[in-house]
């Protein structure tokens, strides 16, 4: 067992992990932050996306020990300080960008990373960026719309409800 220590959502998080413990398991099981979800075992689905040192990372494909000393942001830390939904989260609610909610944390975290690097993405750019995030419920229409709306673009022309 090895001690790891990292900052998660602004707070120090530490624990003892095995060499093989995934970051996703450390967050969920050790830290009780169950918002990061595990949906596959081949690193395809993206339900586990978190930010490590500002980069979008699939927490199922990173070992906890690799995140030692890092700054980690998860879905639980995304809302505003007063508890209200942030711009991306609110856009997902406004545009019905989620149904069962299981892929949602990964979608929100991926969207945040995308908009940081590309503040006004086109539809094609959003869709391409989401190749690593699978959703089975929404058919993606409202997710893409929500992300474009969160970026401040006018989505009224997109086939509405």
């Amino acid at each position, binding site marked *: 067992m090895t001690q790891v220590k990292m900052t998660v959502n602004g707070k120090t998080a530490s624990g003892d992990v*095995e060499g*093989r413990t995934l970051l996703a398991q450390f967050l*969920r*099981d050790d830290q009780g*932050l*169950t*918002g*990061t*979800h*595990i*949906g*596959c*075992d*081949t690193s*395809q*689905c993206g*339900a586990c996306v978190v930010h490590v040192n500002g980069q979008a990372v699939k927490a199922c494909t990173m070992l906890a020990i690799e995140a030692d000393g890092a700054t980690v942001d*998860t*879905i*639980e830390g*995304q*809302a505003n300080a007063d508890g209200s*939904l942030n711009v991306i*989260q609110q856009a*997902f*609610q*406004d545009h*019905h960008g*989620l*149904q*069962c*909610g*299981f*892929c*949602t*944390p990964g979608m*929100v975290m991926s969207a945040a990373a995308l908009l940081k690097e590309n503040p006004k993405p086109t*539809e*094609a750019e*959003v*869709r*391409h960026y*989401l*190749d690593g*995030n*699978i*959703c*089975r*419920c*929404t*058919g*993606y*229409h*409202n*997710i*893409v*719309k929500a992300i474009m709306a969160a970026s401040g673009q006018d989505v009224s022309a*997109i*086939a509405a*409800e």
Partner: protein
Amino acid sequence: MPKDGGIGASTKRREDVRFLTGNGRYTDDINLRGQAYVFFLRSDVAHGKLTSVDTSAAEGMDGVVRIFTGKDFEGVGGMPCGWQVTDKHGQPMQEPGHPVLAQGKVRHVGEPIAAVVAETLAQARDAAEAIVLEIEELPAVINMKEAVKDGAPKVHEELPSNLCYDWGFVEENKEAVNKAFEEAAHVTTLELVNNRLVANPMEPRVAVGDYSRSDGEHTLYTTSQNPHVIRLLMGAFVLGIPEHKLRVVAPDVGGGFGTKIFHYQEEAFCTFAAKACNRPVKWTSSRSEAFMSDAHGRDHVTKIELALDGDNNFTAIRTDTYANMGAYLSTFAPSVPTWLHGTLMAGNYKTPLIYVNVKAVFTNTVPVDAYRGAGRPEATFQLERLVDKAAHELGVDPIKLRRQNFITEFPYATPVAVEYDTGDYFATMDKLEEMADIAGFAARRKESEAKGKLRGFGVNCYIEACGIAPSNLVGQLGARAGLYESATVRVNATGGLVVMTGSHSHGQGHETAFPQVIAEMIGIDASMVEIVHGDTARTPMGMGTYGSRSIAVGGSAMVRATEKIIAKAKKIAGHILEASEGDIELKDGMFSVAGTDKSLAWGDVTLAAYVPHNYPLEDLEPGLEETAFYDPSNFTYPSGAYACEVELDPETGQVTIERFSAADDFGNIINPMIVTGQVHGGLAQGIGQALLENCAYDSDGQLLSASYMDYAMPRASDLPFYDVDHSCQTPCTHNPLGVKGCGEAGAIGSPPAVVNAVLDAMRSGGKDVAHIDMPVTPARVWAAMQG
């Protein structure tokens, strides 16, 4: 105009807040003090005699609590099947045993053989690797037609063959149907495969079993669409636990699509093991495990024929299907290719004579059961591909041929038992033609061709039967359960309401949509209504959510219970206002006496019910809580018309969806935003089936597509924005809300439009191909273009 927050409003979902902030409570998020973890050792062989399971090396390993094998379940019931189909000779189907852990034989890759319970999952997995299995491999039975030939190896030795049943419907009409074919002016024939799919909800299955020695109560937390069904099946038929000692909880569930309906071995195991080990026992499926243990969907091989007269009227349909059951009968499996498929063979058309034959076959594959649409996508696909093929053979426009044969009068009694209550197929086809801009297609095709691509247009219509179902009818058809739904509406003293519903939301938004109905009925704000679901200790017995039944059946139960609440509330108001109850009106949350200005607020009446001081106690009990069980009198029949435009690259065979238009008739609608979302999701799954997804086995029964690397899940870049409309509304005539349900329509109606479009694209490039089987992959398109 929809009342603000009432029926017809696109109210934003209140459940979104917890999902968007990581505060959802999915079954894997539940951890009980002292829990142990189970890892299942599964067969990697499709068919074999299990001659030895040697756990001796594993027993002593670090952290191992206990190891279970089939021997531990010899005194326990097997997994039950909830539907008994009778074959065309009046005999019951073959119903093999289905053990919790393999006994004597393994019959599919993925069948659980041993279960290691340990302190950590990693230790359980490590110990499982030390279990030594001796399996004498037997030839695997994979191809259905081979499986029913004389001398084929038997999946179940105790059965006469691999044929589960040979079902004919309607048997008495068979001769007349055959005669119509002999006399037909034209016959169109089509052979096709409806490809096996894996539902793959994003949340893998999880089960946490718990047992209390102090009160003898079992609790199972499970990713289920129907906790009461699990309680009944597991308690009564597998483990022998009476209902009042067994609580089943399905908390937030991350998608179901049918595959989380069924009672699975892992649920029974965790419940059993928690008592045996005196610890909670938790199982979390990995995705690879899901591929080989979640029930699969579809997997039909069909030949269908259409007879037409000289004026292009449909005179008869005859269809023959081999339906894969897999190695064991899953909970509802026998009903899917029969009562949910054969009865849909009229489609939108007035074909007078229809005969459906289905042979259900056991193979050494994962059990197959309902998956979004359950039988109706299979029926729609064969019918709508057939009609399109006929149109091309006859040189008739595919839309015109359909319109000519549309049912025009309702109610319509089909020749396959079901009676459609209402519909207007012309309206949805008109709407679709408007949405799809058919007039502009020629120009769009030219643009595609200028880029070196072919462009195709495909159209189809569909009908579906959902809102399942009348209990006495399904009972006659072999169902071993009723299909009513329940609701208890409890009004609190301060005016808020709690609806305890037997329906279950795993993405459908009931927590938002159901209160909208009550808000409309009483005239209060929807925020005063709370929905409780998914816990057998808190809700009345209900059948759960699948078959697009929640609003039609669950919503109706809620309406009936609320009507009882309103009736009683009016009595109380009448007493307080000193008027007869017949003169009391309820509007916008106020009770008033007709023709006067005397009124009383909802909250005053609810308080009076629980503080009955000025109250007719001689005639009326205090309290304000009512229950209703609603058994529908018929299925509901959504219908619609879909159009798809594709671009096809002739050099690579790659197909992209350029446009998808869907005009649906769902009757009345509660929340348009949620309905649209359901259609979007269904379309994605239907397009996925048509172009991408395929659950593939090799001839030895090895599952080739057992991860997201090998099974092509639709991604955002595979799909366009959809154009969806549900303004055509012929309300259901037989439920109080006039709703039909919408959850499966998208997956039912979309595959034919896609395939029809691909063939149209190929024809425009000079390649006239009669059919390509799904998934219409680039390899298959390219091969068809060359051949």
